[in-house]
């Protein structure tokens, strides 16, 4: 059988190990296993690398323990804005989106851009309109926001408020 393989990541970071609780670590491992399995099944069944990476990333986007899709960080206004890209090594075709809101799976939007748009990269409202035009699954803002992200956002905002104001 020809070689096939898949590698996934759920983010690299330098952090205090004590912040990684056993429960969180277990949840992350389970999420990685599920995403790997989703992509591997595509490859094992003879599917394309493109379908495999999309399946794996969709799984991670749907898991609140990873910073993408559900569980995304919040910007300064407390909003979720998501970026994604996909690229086909066979053809060098690519699709990308940034600052997309409401779209459940930004990676599928990036793939839709790659396959159904004359452009490579769509941003913010344009990306969301393109998602709506192509019937992609959308979610309300509260779907993406997790308690953990909101707590971290509050901490950052409170820290910023402590800094002395420079205007008179």
């Amino acid at each position: 059988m020809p070689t096939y393989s898949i590698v996934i990541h759920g983010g690299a970071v330098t952090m205090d190990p004590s912040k990684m609780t056993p429960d969180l670590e277990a949840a992350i491992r389970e999420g990685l296993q599920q995403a790997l399995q989703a992509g591997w099944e595509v490859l094992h069944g003879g599917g394309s690398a493109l379908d495999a990476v999309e399946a794996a990333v969709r799984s991670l986007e749907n898991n609140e323990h990873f910073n993408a899709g559900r569980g995304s960080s919040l910007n300064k206004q407390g909003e979720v804005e998501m970026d994604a890209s996909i690229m086909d090594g066979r053809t060098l075709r690519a699709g990308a989106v940034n600052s997309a809101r409401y779209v459940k799976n930004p990676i599928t939007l990036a793939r839709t851009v790659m396959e159904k748009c004359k452009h490579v990269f769509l941003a913010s409202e344009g990306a969301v309109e393109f998602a709506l035009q192509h019937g992609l699954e959308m979610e309300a803002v509260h779907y993406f926001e997790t308690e953990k992200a909101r707590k971290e956002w509050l901490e950052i905002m409170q820290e910023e408020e402590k800094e002395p104001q420079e205007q008179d």
Partner: protein
Amino acid sequence: TVGAVALDQDGNLAVATSTGGIEGQLKGRVGDSPIVGGGSYAANEACAVSCTGDGEIIMRGALAHEVYALVKYKGLSATEACREAVKLRDEDLKGDKGFIAIDKDGNVAIETNTNIMRCAYRIGEEEPFVAVWREE
């Protein structure tokens, strides 16, 4: 940030990268993840690469394309290329960097300078590997 790279049974490579950005970022901020050659790159003749870490650093180094170029033009393995990209101009590009890659022969690479790299891989029907810490 999350990402995936794969090689299928027809010898085709692909990459996907997705992110929710960074906590408290300015509205409209774009990281490396959607940038072709920044956070993602794939070409069948060399490798597929997905990046994670400090987006501004990865973008300035065009690090996904850097890994591709090191494999294609310098003849490095995916692991060697990712290792070089982690160290590339570290005096100017200091920050968290993590890479996953697969080359055209199905060799997998995972390299990072962080203590946490949530990752997993599976080659053919071999047992899957899952890790959270770099040392695993």
